[in-house]
C-alpha cells in the first residue's frame, strides 16, 4: 500500500465503476434477467380517454403458457410521488386517461406466448372526449379528467414578492412576451426494465429495477401489493441514464411485482423504446408569459410571469414542477419584485414529471430571451445587462431562498472572453450569429419530498478485520458519477490507499436508505454525509492508534496508511494495526455519517415555499455560435462555450462531462426534440422521429469550471449537471436572431419553424415593396 496519503478530491478521476462500463461487464437490469424467468408484458390502452366497462382477459388467461394475468381489479391502491397527490393506479381502473396507459398485464413462459396473450385481451369501453391540449383542458365546458379538479387544473400557484406594480412604474422599458416550449422526453438510452422475484415460501419480494429513487419504489411497491416494506428488497443495478425519467415509482415497477406475486415466481419485463417513451414523465409543454421592467441602464425592476403546463393525465410530480417554474425566477439575478402565476393542467397525454432542470427550464428560457431582447432595444450588450443585475453578495431572495456562493459574474467573464464575444456579436457575416444566456439550479432540494424526520442523507462505512473499507451507499448512480464522488471523499479524508476501498450501492437489504438522485442533491448532501462518516471513522482510528502509541489522540497524525506521533515519525502504527486495535471489544465497525439541511435553508414560509430551496445554487453562462442555411433553414450549431460555477470540482473530469451533457440536452430541446401526438396518441415514440442530436451535428463544447467554494458544500462543492441546460435554447434563439434578424418565441427551432418565419418576412417585405411602389402613384392621383 502507498506510503504517502492518497489524494481523493480535486482530481481528474475516471469513474470508479468505469471499467465495468467500458468492458461490457456492467450489468444493467435487463442483463440480469435469468433465462428461465417468466416474460411479463403490459396491455396498454389504445385510447387516450375512455371509461372502462369491461377488461376481458378470459381468453388470455386460458392460453397455454400463460401463468398470470392481472388487471386493475388486482390493485385498488393508488400511488404517486407526492403524498398529497396519489391519483394513479398501476393498472387503470374504471377509466383510462392516456394512450398507452397500462390496463392489464400477463406473465407467460416466453415472449411469443405473452405477445399472443396480449392480442386476446378485449376492452369494452365508452369513449370520452380527448383533451389533448392546454386550450381544450381549460375550455369552459371541457370534460374533466379527475373529479374534484374543476377546470382540469391540477394546481394553481399565485404569489407576489415585493411590489411589482411599483417596480414596473420605476422602469424605463416594460415588455411582455409569451414563449412556447414543446414537450420533451428524457430519451435515456436504456429502455425501462425490471425484474421481480416473489418467494412464496418466505413471502418476500426482490425487485431489480432501473430507478433513480429505489427507496420510493420500495415504499410504493409495498403499498400497492399491500405488504409490509420489510417484505420487499429493492436492488438497483447499473442504470443507462435517467435524467428524471426514473425519479418516481413507475407503473411497470409495480406491475412486474404484482405479476411476480400472482405467478408465484420470477418475472422479467423489458419495455420497448415506444413503451419507455409512453411511460414518459418528461418536461411538459408550456406557455410562459413573462413581463419585465428595465431601467435605461439595464437593471430589472420587476418581473411578472405566468406559466401554464400541460401536465398529462396524472399528478406525478406536477405540483412541484409548477412550483419550481415560479420559484427559480429568483436566485440568479437581483430582482426584488417578482409575481408568479402558475397553472398545471390535466390532459389526456402521458403524465409529465421531472426532467433535468425540473420545472425551471422553460421559465428560464423565456426570461433570458426577454431580457436579451429588451437589452437590444435599449442598445445594451446582453452580457453587460446580466452583470448589472448580479446578486451583490450572500443574501436571501424575495421568496426566501438563500444565496451563499455566486460565481455567475466569473462565468460571464469566461465565456465572453473565450468566445471572442466582443469581436463577434453583431459582426458576423450574414447567416451567422452568436448568442448567449444564463441559468442556474439547486444543489438538492433542502426539504425532502417525503418528510420523515430522518437526516437528509446517510452513509455507512464498514471496517472489518481485513482492513478493507466498504462504503455502503444508497445513492443511485445513474451515470452521473455519485459512486465515484463518495469514494473520492472517503479517500481524501482518510488518505488511505485506493485499493483499500470498495463502494457497495443500492441494495435495500444492505445499504442505507437514500432519498434518491433527484434535484442534484447527491454531491451536496451525500457528499457531506460521506465527509461526516469519513471524519468519524478517522477519529475512531486516530483514537485506536493513540492507544497503541500510548499518547493522546491529538498527538496522533494520520498519514493514510499509517499513524504517527506528531513530530516523531519513528513512532508509528500501520493502518492494519490501528484497525485491529479499533476492533478490540467492538468487532466490525459500522461508522455512520449523516447530513441534514438546516431549517433556515428550507425555503420561504408561503405555501409551496420549500420548492426551490437549497443550500447552494449552481450558476451557468453560455455562448453559442450558429450558421443558418438560407435554403433549408437548418440551424447548425458551430461552437458552444459553457461556464459553470459548481462551487468546487470534486472531480473536474466528471464536472466537464456533466456540463457537456447538460448543454447537449439543452441543445436537443432547442433544435429538434419534441414529442408528438396524433389525436392523443404519442406518435414520435422512437429515436428516428423524436430526433435527439447525433454526433454529426453536435459541435465542440468548450467548458470552463468556476469554483466559488460554497461555505456549506462538501469541500465547497455544489451541483454540476442540471444548471447548464436551460441556457441553451435561449442562447440558440439569440444566436439565430443575430444571424437572421428573426426573433423566435417557440422551441424547438426546427427548419420548418424557421422557414415559416422567413416566408412571413419575405411576404411582409414584398407587401411593403408593393406599397412603396404604389404610393407615389396614389400621391400623384390625389
Amino acid at each position, binding site marked *: 500500500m502507498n506510503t504517502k496519503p492518497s489524494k481523493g478530491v480535486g482530481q481528474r478521476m*475516471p469513474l470508479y465503476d468505469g471499467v465495468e*462500463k467500458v468492458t*461490457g461487464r456492467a450489468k444493467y437490469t435487463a442483463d440480469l434477467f435469468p433465462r428461465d424467468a417468466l416474460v411479463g408484458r403490459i396491455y396498454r390502452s389504445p385510447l387516450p380517454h375512455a371509461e372502462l366497462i369491461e377488461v376481458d382477459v378470459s381468453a388470455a388467461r386460458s392460453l397455454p403458457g400463460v401463468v398470470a394475468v392481472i388487471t386493475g381489479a388486482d390493485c385498488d391502491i393508488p400511488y404517486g410521488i407526492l403524498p398529497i397527490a396519489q391519483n394513479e393506479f398501476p393498472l387503470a381502473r374504471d377509466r383510462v386517461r392516456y394512450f398507452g396507459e397500462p390496463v392489464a398485464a400477463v406473465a407467460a413462459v416466453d415472449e411469443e406466448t405473452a405477445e399472443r396473450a396480449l392480442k386476446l385481451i378485449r376492452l369494452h369501453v365508452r369513449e370520452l372526449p380527448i383533451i389533448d391540449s392546454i386550450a381544450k383542458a381549460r375550455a369552459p365546458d371541457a370534460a374533466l379528467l379527475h373529479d374534484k379538479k374543476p377546470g382540469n387544473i391540477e394546481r394553481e400557484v399565485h404569489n407576489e414578492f415585493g411590489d411589482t406594480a411599483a417596480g414596473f412604474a420605476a422602469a424605463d422599458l416594460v415588455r411582455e412576451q409569451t414563449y412556447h416550449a414543446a414537450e420533451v422526453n428524457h430519451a435515456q438510452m*436504456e429502455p425501462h426494465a425490471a425484474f421481480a422475484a416473489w418467494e412464496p415460501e418466505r413471502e418476500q419480494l426482490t425487485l431489480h429495477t432501473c430507478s433513480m429513487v429505489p427507496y420510493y419504489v420500495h415504499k410504493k411497491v409495498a403499498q400497492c401489493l399491500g405488504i409490509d416494506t420489510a417484505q420487499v428488497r429493492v436492488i438497483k443495478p447499473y442504470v*443507462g441514464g435517467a435524467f428524471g425519467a426514473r425519479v418516481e415509482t413507475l407503473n411497470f415497477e409495480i406491475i412486474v411485482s404484482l405479476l411476480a406475486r400472482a405467478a408465484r415466481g420470477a418475472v422479467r419485463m423489458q419495455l420497448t423504446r415506444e413503451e419507455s417513451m409512453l411511460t414518459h414523465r418528461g418536461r411538459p409543454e408550456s406557455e410562459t408569459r413573462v413581463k419585465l421592467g428595465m431601467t435605461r441602464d439595464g437593471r430589472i425592476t420587476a418581473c411578472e410571469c405566468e406559466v401554464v403546463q400541460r401536465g398529462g393525465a396524472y399528478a406525478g410530480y406536477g405540483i412541484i414542477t409548477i412550483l419550481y417554474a415560479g420559484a427559480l425566477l429568483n436566485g440568479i439575478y437581483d430582482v426584488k419584485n417578482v409575481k408568479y402565476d402558475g397553472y398545471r393542467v390535466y390532459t389526456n397525454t402521458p403524465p409529465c414529471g421531472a426532467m433535468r432542470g425540473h420545472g425551471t427550464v422553460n421559465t428560464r428560457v423565456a426570461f433570458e430571451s426577454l431580457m436579451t431582447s429588451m437589452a437590444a432595444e435599449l442598445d445594451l450588450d446582453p452580457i453587460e445587462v446580466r452583470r448589472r443585475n448580479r446578486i451583490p453578495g450572500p443574501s436571501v431572495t424575495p421568496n426566501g431562498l438563500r444565496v451563499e456562493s455566486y460565481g455567475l459574474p466569473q462565468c460571464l467573464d469566461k465565456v465572453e472572453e473565450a468566445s471572442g464575444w466582443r469581436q463577434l456579436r453583431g459582426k458576423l457575416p450574414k447567416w451567422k450569429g452568436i448568442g448567449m444566456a444564463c441559468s442556474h439550479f439547486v444543489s438538492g432540494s433542502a426539504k425532502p419530498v417525503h418528510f420523515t424526520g430522518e437526516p437528509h442523507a446517510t452513509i455507512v462505512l464498514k471496517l472489518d478485520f481485513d482492513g478493507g473499507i466498504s462504503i455502503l451507499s444508497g445513492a443511485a448512480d*445513474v451515470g452521473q458519477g455519485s459512486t465515484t464522488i463518495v469514494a473520492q471523499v472517503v479517500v481524501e479524508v482518510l488518505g488511505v490507499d485506493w485499493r483499500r476501498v470498495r463502494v457497495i450501492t443500492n441494495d435495500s437489504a444492505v445499504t442505507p436508505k437514500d432519498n434518491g438522485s433527484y434535484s442534484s442533491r447527491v454531491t451536496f448532501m451525500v457528499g457531506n454525509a460521506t465527509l461526516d462518516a469519513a471524519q468519524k471513522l478517522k477519529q475512531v482510528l486516530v483514537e485506536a492508534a493513540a492507544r497503541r502509541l500510548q499518547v493522546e489522540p491529538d498527538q496522533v497524525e494520520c498519514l493514510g496508511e499509517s499513524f504517527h506521533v506528531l513530530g516523531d515519525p519513528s513512532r508509528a502504527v500501520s493502518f492494519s494495526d490501528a484497525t485491529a486495535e479499533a476492533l478490540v471489544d467492538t468487532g466490525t465497525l459500522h461508522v455512520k455519517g449523516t447530513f441534514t439541511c438546516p431549517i433556515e435553508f428550507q425555503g420561504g414560509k408561503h405555501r409551496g415555499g420549500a420548492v426551490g430551496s437549497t443550500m447552494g445554487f449552481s450558476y451557468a453562462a453560455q455562448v453559442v455560435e450558429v450558421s443558418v442555411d438560407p435554403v433549408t433553414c437548418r440551424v447548425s450549431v458551430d461552437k458552444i462555450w459553457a461556464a459553470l460555477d459548481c462551487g468546487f470540482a470534486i472531480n473536474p473530469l466528471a464536472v466537464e462531462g456533466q456540463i457537456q451533457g447538460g*448543454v*447537449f440536452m439543452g441543445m436537443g430541446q432547442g433544435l429538434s426534440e419534441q414529442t408528438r401526438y396524433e389525436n392523443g396518441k404519442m406518435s414520435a415514440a422512437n429515436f428516428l422521429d423524436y430526433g435527439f442530436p*447525433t*454526433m454529426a451535428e453536435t459541435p465542440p463544447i468548450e467548458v470552463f469550471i468556476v469554483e466559488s467554494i460554497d461555505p456549506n458544500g462538501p469541500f465547497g462543492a455544489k451541483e454540476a449537471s442540471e444548471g447548464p441546460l436551460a441556457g441553451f435554447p435561449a442562447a440558440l434563439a439569440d444566436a439565430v436572431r443575430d444571424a437572421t434578424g428573426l426573433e423566435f418565441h417557440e422551441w424547438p427551432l426546427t427548419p420548418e419553424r424557421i422557414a415559416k418565419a422567413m416566408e412571413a418576412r419575405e411576404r411582409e417585405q414584398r407587401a411593403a415593396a408593393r406599397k412603396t411602389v404604389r404610393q407615389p402613384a396614389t400621391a400623384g392621383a390625389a
Partner: protein
Amino acid sequence: MKPILRIQVNGRWREEAVADNTLLIDFLREQLQLTGTKQGCDGGECGACTVLVDGRPRLSCCAFAASFEGHHVETIESQWQDGQMSPLQQAFHEKLGAQCGYCTPGMIMAAEALLRTNAEPSEAEIRQALGGNLCRCTGYVKIIESVQAAAPGHRQTTGEPA
C-alpha cells in the same frame, strides 16, 4: 427443430441451435449470455447494438443470426484480451467517454471498426464514422476525445499507452 448455426463469436467457433427468426442481438444476449451488447431502440435507430461482423460494424438488432453461418462476429467482450483493456476501452475509461455506459459497447465497437481502417482519424472522420451511435449522456465531446486518444497513430506519436 431449430437448425444448427456454425458461427465464430469472439474468436471461438460455436455450433448452436438457433431458430431462423432469432435476431443476432438476441442470439448474443440471450443464448450466449454476452450481455455487453445493448438494445437501445426498437430497431435500427441508435447503434447501441453495434457489433462487428467480419470486421465491419453491424446493427445486431437488424440482422438474423442465421445469416451469419460461417462468419466472424466480435462483441465488446472481445476487446478485453490478455487480462487487459483494449486501447479503446482504456481511453473511454480514462477520458470519460462513458457516463452511464449504456451506449459504450456499441460506441467502442463502431470506433474499433474505424480504427482498423484509419489509424489516425481526424475529428471530422470520427464524427462521420460514429454518427449512427447515439449517446444521451456525454454530448459526444469526450467520446471523440477517447477515440482520438486510442487511435494507433496518435499513440505512436505521443508514446502514450492510450
